[in-house]
């Protein structure tokens, strides 16, 4: 079976390791992975494969891609596969976090399964906190507190009149804004699909960023990976990234004590989950489709999703995985991960 995905680096390495284990333990199924260089390239390649009627058996996808594939009639309904599987119970299905079940269910049918899911998190320099008289084991929990910390951590350390240590930097992106908007009590669109991001909540979300940038002057704008690089260089004390960012950061030496924390909150504590899902394309061969489901079932079982999570910092997709020895032992050994796992 072919499996197209867009994971690379340490994430792709862990995926390959797990697929090798699946192949070793399943005599009658072999999953062959085809890594694609980026999600954009993966999307284009999948679309071309569908037009040529040569789609892979399994692919990593986002919700909007799934919506298009459903319309094209090329996806297997996963509930038709797991309903005929005696080894996948209602309890198994309900063990998957509701937010993941809902976001993979389209018009009452589950067409995809959660695969690599992540949330936004803060990474912070505990040494900088300590140097500025802040408790290194406490991260601000509200917008107001975060802004206060930001002002304290922004300094001119060599007296040349220029700021050389910053509280945070901001890479303007939709994920961050969506989180702020929801935390301020707003939404992106209404039930009819009309944008309502310019509600009072939207203004409040943007005002929060603008105040830090231009009123407090405790943050600066960055693009691409500048923000993460400046954090790694000790220029900025608090950096917002994906929970998976730490897996990439660990590729380089980290020369300070690093802390992880959930996002500060405001009127609500909502935080958008991102990351991709996994689908099975119709092949006309039910045996093949069942084998694809067998792989998805295995990969998202408690033991595997727990392992995937501790190796990559993606979220486990099942509730029971959080209670597994794999995750509990990991959190006991590395308690700082409790903020983001």
């Amino acid at each position: 079976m072919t499996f197209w995905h867009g994971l690379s680096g340490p994430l792709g390495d862990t995926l390959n390791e797990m697929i090798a284990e699946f192949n070793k333990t399943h005599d009658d199924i072999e999953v062959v992975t085809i890594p694609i260089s980026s999600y954009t390239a993966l999307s284009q390649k999948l679309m071309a494969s569908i037009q040529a009627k040569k789609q892979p058996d399994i692919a990593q996808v986002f919700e909007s891609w799934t919506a298009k594939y459903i319309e094209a009639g090329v996806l297997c309904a996963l509930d038709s596969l797991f309903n005929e599987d005696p080894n996948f119970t209602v309890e198994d299905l309900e063990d998957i976090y509701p937010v993941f079940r809902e976001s993979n269910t389209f018009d009452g049918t589950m067409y995809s399964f959660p695969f690599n899911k992540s949330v936004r998190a803060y990474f912070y320099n505990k040494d900088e906190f300590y140097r500025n008289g802040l408790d290194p084991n406490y991260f601000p929990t509200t917008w107001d507190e975060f802004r206060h910390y930001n002002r304290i951590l922004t300094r001119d350390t060599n007296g040349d009149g220029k700021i050389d240590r910053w509280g945070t930097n901001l890479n303007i992106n939709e994920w961050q804004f969506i989180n702020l908007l929801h935390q301020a009590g707003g939404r992106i669109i209404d039930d009819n699909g009309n944008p309502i991001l310019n509600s009072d909540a939207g203004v409040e979300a943007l005002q929060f960023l603008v105040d830090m940038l231009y009123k407090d002057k405790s943050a600066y704008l960055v693009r691409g990976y500048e923000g993460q690089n400046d954090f790694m260089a000790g220029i900025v004390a608090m950096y917002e990234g994906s929970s998976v960012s730490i897996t990439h950061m660990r590729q380089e030496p980290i020369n300070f004590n690093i802390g992880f924390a959930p996002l500060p909150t405001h009127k609500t504590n909502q935080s958008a989950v991102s990351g991709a899902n996994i689908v099975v394309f119709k092949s006309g061969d039910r045996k093949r489709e069942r084998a694809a489901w067998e792989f998805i079932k295995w990969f998202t079982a408690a033991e595997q999703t727990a392992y995937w999570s501790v190796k990559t910092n993606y979220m486990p997709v099942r509730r029971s995985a959080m209670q597994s020895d794999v995750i509990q032992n990991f959190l006991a050994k590395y308690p700082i991960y409790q903020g983001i796992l």
Partner: protein
Amino acid sequence: MSSWKLLFMSLNRQHGFKARPALKGFLEEAMDGIERSRISPREAVDRAAKKFAEYIEAEKK
């Protein structure tokens, strides 16, 4: 149910991947307007919402 309806659902629940680059662009423009022209956050989000609405209408066609 149309793919756009499904996308809208996922936008509110999570956020649809297809619309993300557009929304990011409109937010960047909003911030750029604040930085360069000192427009207010109210004006900036109004502009972003208007452009996002135009984008959605164009994509529906």
